[in-house]
């Protein structure tokens, strides 16, 4: 566009002024549309979840040094619906301490089991293994078993937020 005649005294030619304006309004329109669309799509990832304390089990019912899988019923809001769901939590009483593990392997989230003979939590998906303290003893899991924040009220064990320990 070098051969465009430039009117004397005009720092910007009429043509480039118009293309800039068009470009700018294009940007403005995209933002006007893009921001609400992005917020709409990402909303479930951006809202803070309020974690409820779940009643897991009576403290007395947990055997010592012997992991126990408890199926906990709870109500969960799933989009527009509210559902009764069951979540498995592994509880372990070690000495005086009670630990509640997420029942999902920290590798890629399969359900694992307790192998009494070897005293390990064993994950069938890729052979991940954890000892009773949740430490990785074999296979691909990158970090120890995830634990729930816990507290005891009236002799009942409550599980709260899931905590992740990088290994």
């Amino acid at each position: 566009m070098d051969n465009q005649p430039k009117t004397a005294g005009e720092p910007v030619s009429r043509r480039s002024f118009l293309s800039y304006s068009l470009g700018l309004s294009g940007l403005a329109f995209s933002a006007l549309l893009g921001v609400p669309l992005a917020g709409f799509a990402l909303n479930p990832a951006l809202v803070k979840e309020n974690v409820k304390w779940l009643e897991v089990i009576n403290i007395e019912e947990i055997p010592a040094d012997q992991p126990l899988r408890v199926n906990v019923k709870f109500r969960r809001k799933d989009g527009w619906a509210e559902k009764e769901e069951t979540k498995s939590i592994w509880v372990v009483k070690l000495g005086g301490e009670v630990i509640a593990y997420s029942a999902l392997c920290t590798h890629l989230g399969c359900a694992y089991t307790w192998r009494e003979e070897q005293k390990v939590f064993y994950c069938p998906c890729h052979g991940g293994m954890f000892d009773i303290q949740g430490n990785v003893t074999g296979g691909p899991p990158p970090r120890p078993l995830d634990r729930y924040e816990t507290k005891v009220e009236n002799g009942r064990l409550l599980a709260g937020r899931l905590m992740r320990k990088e290994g």
Partner: protein
Amino acid sequence: MFNQVYDWMDERLQLKATVRNILEHPVPDHVNFLHCFGGITFTLIVVQALTGMFLALYYVPAPEQAFASVEYISREVAFGKAIRGMHRVGASLAVIMVVVHMVRVYFTGAYKKPREMNWLIGVTLLFVLLGFGFTGYLLPWDQKAYWATAVGTNMAGSVPVIGDFLLKVLRGGTELGSLTLTRFYAVHIWFLPAGLTGLLALHFYMVRKQGIAGPL
């Protein structure tokens, strides 16, 4: 009759020149069966689009109904098993064929200048096809679908720094549920097809504009 209609339209739109240009486009001598795989992939994609549109007549993307609606298609709708089967098998075939196509392009060196951009568009197309596979696999909402998605989204979750956010974006929250199913469905039937159409248009435009790469 046909000729009369054709002439009538040609008089207004000058179709004949365009049609001749397409049908009589010369094909270079060195082009052989190895150059068919892109076209085979495209044919499969057209079949996927058709069978998919028809599956959507009965499919419902909600946790309580998805599995039942899929079973209904298989058990009760005429040709239901066949249409579903075509869509399932076609999905795998398309991925296989696109990989063969890619290998052909690689070994004939057709990705080199001036076709670098079309290679990149090709790579994007590959990911779009894999995206179709990933989102489509969840839709029957059976155990296999559910756990494949649980594990697949967990993989995204293991990305450093943004993993957690990515996982929530994919699942529509921390847990797999209604919102995962609706967003996978929307992506499968709207977002990806829109992207695929645009990318294919570019891909074919470039193939035509640049011509098929020369012999080795």
